[in-house]
């Protein structure tokens, strides 16, 4: 058992979970602080609206709070918590499909964050970047959910193939196939943006 006073930022996730299970609320707070933004980013891309994603991420931490004792360190903690978030996001998407969710439907909610102008950037460049971001967001949102989650984890969350397979519960071949097909769809949808990006 880890004494509460020894909980620090330098501990690994698995150690923090163990500390939380042994009664350290501080360890839970550290885990929340470490994972809230990456999870929010992932779920936000999955659902397409910010408020719904906030709910799902909070539910993820509620699950962590209630089920932390079931965590076995056979897999990385990040894989485990991403799996929880992924399952909750899928459930939320399914609810929205059947109109059972209290949250706003896909596309109605506020999207992520505004594009912030870089200090050395002209207003035209900022506007162009904003339009490109909108197109990328729309292209990701138009992907089928199975492709979208793979793309977000691979390109945005920078996860490896093995970890994504564990999070999504699919085989390597399935994941590669999904990524390949998603890439084709994205390249088709984002061709003008890519060409514009290459000319810059």
């Amino acid at each position, binding site marked *: 058992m880890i004494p509460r006073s020894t909980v620090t930022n330098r501990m690994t996730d698995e150690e923090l979970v163990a500390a939380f299970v042994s009664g350290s609320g501080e360890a839970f707070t550290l885990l929340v602080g470490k994972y809230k*933004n990456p999870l*929010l980013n992932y779920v936000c891309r999955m659902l397409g609206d910010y408020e719904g994603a906030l709910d799902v991420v*909070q539910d993820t931490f509620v699950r962590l709070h209630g089920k932390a004792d079931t965590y076995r360190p056979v897999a990385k903690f990040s894989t485990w918590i991403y799996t929880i978030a992924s399952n909750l996001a899928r459930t939320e998407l399914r609810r929205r499909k059947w109109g059972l969710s209290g949250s706003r439907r896909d596309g109605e909610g506020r999207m992520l964050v505004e594009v912030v102008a870089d200090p050395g950037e002209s207003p035209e460049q900022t506007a162009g970047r904003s339009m490109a*971001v909108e197109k990328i967001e729309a292209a990701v949102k138009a992907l089928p959910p199975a492709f979208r989650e793979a793309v977000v984890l691979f390109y945005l969350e920078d996860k490896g193939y093995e970890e994504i397979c564990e999070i999504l519960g699919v085989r390597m071949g399935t994941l590669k196939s999904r990524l390949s097909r998603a890439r084709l769809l994205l390249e088709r949808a984002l061709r003008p943006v890519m060409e514009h990006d290459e000319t810059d």
Partner: protein
Amino acid sequence: MKQTDGGDHRLRRLFSMLPRAEAPADFEERLARKLAGGTRRGVFHSLNLRRYAVPGLALLLVGALTTVMYFTRFNTTQEIGVPSGDTLTPPPVDSRPEGAVPKDASRALPAPVDDESLPEAQDRRSDEVTRPPADARSEPSALERMKMGKTAPGRPMMIESIVPNSAVPVDSLAPEDTVAVDSVLSVPDSVSTEPDALPDTVRIRKPY
């Protein structure tokens, strides 16, 4: 190590333009409220019944529609007391002597005017004289066809009641005359299947 290729590189570059989502400042407070509220969630919430709302409502709707259809379409009771919904039970064979007038028919329907001077009565008498005997008829009458279910294809019919002296003589009903009715829902007890016991006329109607 992650595998990448040329397409990956371009996509990664594009995706790097996307802004990252950031949790609001009160995220921890809201989470704490949710955690506190989570302990108050009862059995009803944990059952998560909302997922069954749509199929449950659909089943209820189908059940209600079926019930309404049953009562409006089949559950009409005829004047002679035979529930018209029973289309499966064959009608009992009438044991009355041939040509006997059904009791129920005279009770259920207005009494025929027995005035021999009326032109209709004279017409009826002439019909009776000219009608060939039952065994001499080569084709079954319209009523027999109805009772055998051999009406016009796809358009079975309902015999509402027997009306002596009514407007349509049975023998004058051609097959094409019976096309416009809907279904044979029942044949009253009082109607015999014997050709000679057939009433002169029937009144037929569309059930709806």
